[in-house]
């Protein structure tokens, strides 16, 4: 319990709250996009390397393979559930619902990182291949969403041909996938020793940079909420709060079946419960131009992200503890 408190009072979270507060009070302050994007690349390199180094320490087992598979499956399945729930409960049309669903099937790296810190703080340990899981869960959701939107097969699409290829590249080779997977492999090749000279940068500064980044996330979330809340009916907002819990339950089940450790369980739950707000919105703009960012982005960035980072993560860790209790 008091771990939950101490997590909530960690500078990382407090800076997020600061940013969100400033934005809601309509401060004009911004972190320049170019700088924030740079920090995002740094963070993904850092966790990729960390994961890779840890993976290099012990052999690849079948169990790891199963966890990776579980991640992919979750990323494919969750959007379907999300889509159905949205169509039943909210006023969103087919396209908006599909686009939104894609966000919940994919993941939020920052939420994942915050969870990793919280897990460490709780004295639990997690394994490096969860980073690989994160990378793998980024994109399958998008394919599901395209199918749900009935867009996948469209051929009268004027710009189809080359565009489909372009879309696939955008989706499969987006920055976070490239950097995460790349850094993971590099960390794996170089190992503990090979990465020693760069660890002051990638390990020592990690949490500090995270504070700066979460300040910006808070500003974005607050602004997104302030500018976009009119677009969201109660049902949609509700979805942004209960869907993470549904995904969490689903993931928890799978983790239980696979008999994963507490830390890893907490992280896979978090990944499933988290919603994308960088890779997927960008992809949706290409894949489903008619879907409204003011809906899916507001929901994922303004509602679900704050929920996960503050209340969600402690809940997911608690849940993971219960399972292995």
């Amino acid at each position, binding site marked *: 319990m008091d771990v939950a408190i101490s997590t909530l009072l960690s500078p990382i979270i407090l800076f997020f709250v600061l940013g969100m507060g400033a934005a809601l009070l309509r401060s004009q302050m*911004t972190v320049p996009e170019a700088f924030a994007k740079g920090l*995002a690349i740094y963070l993904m390199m850092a966790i990729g390397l960390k994961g890779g180094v840890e993976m290099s320490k012990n052999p690849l087992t079948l169990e790891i393979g199963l966890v990776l598979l579980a991640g992919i499956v979750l990323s494919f399945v969750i959007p379907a559930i999300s889509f159905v729930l949205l169509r039943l409960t909210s006023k969103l049309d087919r396209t908006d619902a599909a686009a939104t669903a894609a966000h919940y099937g994919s993941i939020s790296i920052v939420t994942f990182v915050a969870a990793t810190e919280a897990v460490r703080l709780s004295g639990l340990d997690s394994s490096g291949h969860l980073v690989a899981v994160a990378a793998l869960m980024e994109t399958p959701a998008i394919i599901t969403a395209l199918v749900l939107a009935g867009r996948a097969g469209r051929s009268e699409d004027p710009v189809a041909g080359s565009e489909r290829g372009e879309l696939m590249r955008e989706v499969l080779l987006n920055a976070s996938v490239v950097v995460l997977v790349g850094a993971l492999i590099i960390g794996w090749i170089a190992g503990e020793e090979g990465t020693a000279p760069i660890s002051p940068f990638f390990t020592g500064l990690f949490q500090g940079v995270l504070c700066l980044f979460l300040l910006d996330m808070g500003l974005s979330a607050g602004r997104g909420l302030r500018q976009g809340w009119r677009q969201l009916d109660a049902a949609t907002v509700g979805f942004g709060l209960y869907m993470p819990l549904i995904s969490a339950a689903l993931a928890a089940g799978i983790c239980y079946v696979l008999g994963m450790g507490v830390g890893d369980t907490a992280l896979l739950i978090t990944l499933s419960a988290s919603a994308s707000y960088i*890779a997927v919105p*960008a992809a949706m*703009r*290409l894949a489903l131009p*008619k879907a409204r960012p003011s809906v899916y*982005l507001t929901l994922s960035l303004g509602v679900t992200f704050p929920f996960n980072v503050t209340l969600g993560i402690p809940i997911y860790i608690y849940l993971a503890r219960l399972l292995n209790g």
Partner: protein
Amino acid sequence: MHDRKRIELIIERMAYKRACRVLETSGVTGYTVLPALAGYGGGNRWQRDTDMSASRDMVMIICIADEARTTASLESLEDLLGDHIGVVSVSDVEVLRPERF
């Protein structure tokens, strides 16, 4: 000075390369893309530096072309714009070095 057309297309940043390909296939000799900072439309405002996905960012594509290519471009753009936002406006301009367009 010689008469040409100036095509100005405001479109989602994520999709601007589509519009560029359309222009290139319509045979224009060149175009230039400018980033936008903020905007308003359909009752929504957007602003750069406030959303890392940049999914609402827009860009402005400017293309100087002759009558014929302009007509061609506009036709193929119309298809593209079925899907996308795209604010297209065309105006008359006079240019130096007409052979370039």
